[in-house]
């Protein structure tokens, strides 16, 4: 299901797009015709997967199908970092910004409304967990395999919000009502897998917990959870547009998942010795049925209303003009969870004219390693705005790249 959601989100991403911070061209362009009109509709979308461990070939086959060759998996396994991680996200978002009206007697204050679909998740794992799943326990010597810490989160939610903003700097905030769609969480503080020397007994020892939202509800805004959140942008631009500083926050909020949310403590040894066919041999049953792991590995669970924070993120950006038409840009993003690192980036943005900019960046952190990104922004005279790019361009070019990302914005002023 998670993979399907990503698949769909990637499909959406070509239609809508873009996220994170306010597009720099809207703040730095000397052409301000777009915000002198009455309204702007900005559709944004983005989707991407980033990892410090896996490559695009693996991800592509995992998502779109294909056979994962053992040699490739072995090669991948040999090069996995101790703290392997993968993160993915897909958003689509429509924002209505009203420039026409005066609010609270302040002509520079506008009102905006926002509607968005959001899918985010991440997983942190030890290489041996990967090896056990993809290479099998036969890859390891009999005995105990320490699988380390394993963290997995997946969350889907929709937002509808209203907020205020500064018409010239687009500084503002949006308060949103959040409809939780689904939530899954598996946290294993430690896990060990034991294969007996003869191979006649397998034991999975885990210490952790599992949580999932109401599994009987599917689709958008299905009532699984309800919450609220705050998004804000703070943009400061020097009067001559020679510098820009932005600080943004997304998804500062929570979802109260309904009382059918299930939580299971996983502190146990799950042992598998094979199916006991002694009764079968005495004629008790005629057909030998292999058991399923689902039936074998069980732990008692509880169902109750559960409060969970949304996956918040914070962004800082500083741009300074270094030539007549170029800006140097640096910044960082912070995702407060146990898996992601803060991501820092630096790059250049070239204002080819008042309507067109081209940017290139190099980044490090987040769920991945180094990444190279590019983006173009175009602001037409009849007030169309288009932004497209990728924060991990190499993912579209190299099978060995550690992720892939795309974002796309389309805006129109009326």
């Amino acid at each position, binding site marked *: 299901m998670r993979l399907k959601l990503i698949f769909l989100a990637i499909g959406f991403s*070509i239609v809508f797009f873009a996220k994170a911070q306010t597009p720099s061209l809207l703040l730095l362009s000397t052409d301000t015709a777009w915000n002198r009109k009455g309204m702007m509709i900005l559709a944004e979308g983005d989707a991407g997967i980033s990892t410090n461990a896996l490559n695009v070939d693996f991800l592509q086959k995992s998502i779109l*199908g294909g056979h994962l060759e*053992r040699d490739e998996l072995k090669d991948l396994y040999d090069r996995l970092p101790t703290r392997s991680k993968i993160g993915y996200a897909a958003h689509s978002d429509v924002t209505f910004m009203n420039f026409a009206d005066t609010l609270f007697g302040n002509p520079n204050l506008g009102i905006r409304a926002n509607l968005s679909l959001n899918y985010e998740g991440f997983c942190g794992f030890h290489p041996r967990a990967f090896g056990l799943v993809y290479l099998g326990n036969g*890859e390891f010597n009999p005995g105990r395999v320490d699988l380390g810490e394993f963290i997995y989160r997946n969350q889907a939610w929709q937002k509808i919000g209203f907020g205020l903003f500064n018409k010239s700097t687009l500084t503002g905030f949006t308060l949103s009502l959040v409809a939780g769609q689904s939530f899954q969480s598996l946290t294993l503080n430690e896990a060990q897998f034991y294969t007996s020397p003869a*191979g006649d007994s397998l034991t999975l020892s885990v210490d952790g917990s599992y949580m999932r939202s109401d599994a009987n509800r599917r689709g958008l805004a299905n009532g699984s959870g309800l919450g609220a959140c705050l998004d804000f942008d703070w943009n400061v631009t020097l009067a001559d547009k020679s510098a820009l500083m932005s600080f943004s926050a997304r998804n500062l909020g929570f979802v109260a998942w309904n009382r059918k949310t299930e939580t299971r403590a996983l502190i146990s040894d799950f042992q*598998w010795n*094979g*199916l006991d066919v002694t009764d079968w041999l005495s004629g008790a049953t005629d057909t030998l049925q292999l058991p399923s792991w689902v039936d074998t590995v069980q732990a008692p669970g509880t169902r109750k209303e559960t409060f969970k924070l949304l996956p918040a993120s914070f962004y800082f950006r500083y741009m300074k003009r270094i030539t007549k038409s170029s800006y140097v840009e640096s910044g960082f993003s912070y995702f407060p969870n146990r898996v992601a690192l803060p991501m820092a980036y630096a790059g250049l943005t070239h204002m080819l004219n008042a309507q067109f900019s081209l940017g290139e960046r190099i980044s490090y952190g987040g769920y991945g390693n180094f990444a190279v990104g590019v983006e173009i922004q175009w602001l037409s005279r009849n007030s169309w705005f288009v932004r497209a790019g990728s924060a991990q361009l190499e993912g579209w070019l190299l099978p060995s790249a550690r992720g892939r990302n795309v974002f796309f914005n389309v805006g129109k002023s009326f």
Partner: protein
Amino acid sequence: MKFPRLRIFIACLALLFLQSCKRDEPTSWDPDVRAPLAYGRLTLGQLLVDSIFQQDEEGLWHVIVDQKLTDFDLDSLAEIPDTTIVLPPNTLFFVGSVAQGQTIVSSNQQITLNHPTAQFKQVRMKGGKLKYKIRSPVEGYLNCTVTVPGLTLNGVAQSIAFQITPPDGQPYSTTEGYFDLAGLDLSLTGQTGFSFNRLAYQFGIVVAPDAPIPATVSVGDQIQVEITFEDPQIDYARGYFGQHLFSFDEEVDFDAFSSIPEAAFDLNGASTLFSIRNAVGVDAQMDFSQITNWNENQQTQVNLQHTSLFNPINLSRALDNGGLISESEYAVTLNAGNSNLDAFLENLPNKIRIQGDLRVNPLGNISASNDFIYTNNALNADLRMDIPLRIGIQNLILSDTIALSDGERELPIEGKLVLWIKNGFALDANVRLYALRNDGRDLIASDLHLLPAIPGGDEASFIPVETWLDIPITDALLQANDLFIEVTLETPDGSGPVGLYASQVIDFKLLVDGNYSIQYGK
């Protein structure tokens, strides 16, 4: 860039992107898995579920068979055939008008049961009917009473009373009825009390006291009485039953070995108690002419040989102590020392045929006519076999079909199955595994040799031996409808017969060692 071109560009990009996102095949990979599939314990207790298998105090399995060879039907000694008796004509005391309450007939009589051989003095019935029919020409209502002093039910004398109606224009009236004989005791010693096959009774007829008019008896009127014993069944009889010679030739289904597969067995130490119980109060002489068995599968027959069993066997009469029977019994133990019992049993018979003669009262009436029989417990011949499973086996084949579920048939594994067996039996075993198809079977694995347990410090202890067997996972195995496993057991060369004990088990584990194909998304 013109706006329409932008839209076309975006649309093309979208189509290209969506096309690239299409899932054409499942995601799959082949991890190297070493995991247990199944385990279990095989004991003889599971295979020998039949109650004929029992352990002794040392845990040695025995085959214990109680087989009733024949239940000699001696009911014929005490049979009363269906009999109709017409009583002598009754003389009427009056002629003319007879007032109400007047007796017109009163007589003491006895009837005789004609039996060709038996002289019954007493019988107890367990079923049947005594039917009566009265023909009366007397114009009047009459009451008839038949009192039988020797007819008792639980010690209480019984009598029969019925009404006779006028002929109503006919030559005579007919009155019919019946009397249930079940549970009745009949004394058949007649009016003297010392005779046999004779039933005394008193017969009386009076004009009904409540009759509306007096009865009119004409000259020559006679009242005719006819009684019939219909399907009389005797529960107990006493008397003298006569001399008889019965020949018998009975074939008995013998299913004790039906659950044991075909093989060459060397049964050692078997014994059989052959017994004849006589619960009848008659002397008898049994003369077996032949006892044979028959193995239907092998079409082989073995005649039982014994030093004394085929001589005439005298069976003294049982004693009746007020209903408590002291049976007489003849018993002889057959073993390898006095008979060919081993060969007889090693034929694993399906049927046993027993032929001979039985003489009853060969010395005549030496009991002063006090022979007795309780027909539900007469004369039985039984066989009680005790075969300790200390056996030698050659080519004992155990086989079974393992029905595979769809999930197992589609088990996507390349590699091998590993069968670990810990054998507690001192038996060699060769395992063969076949894949069953609609049109036949394919041999998947053969010559999988299972090592026997090693004899321990004493006769009943064995040191289990572990064996690892590799079974390749072939296409034939994966495409099989079902699996057929065949295990051939043999006692090791030169070891002689080995005991099968309850403590002996075969532990086994089935592991998979290979590349398991995992896939999802299609």
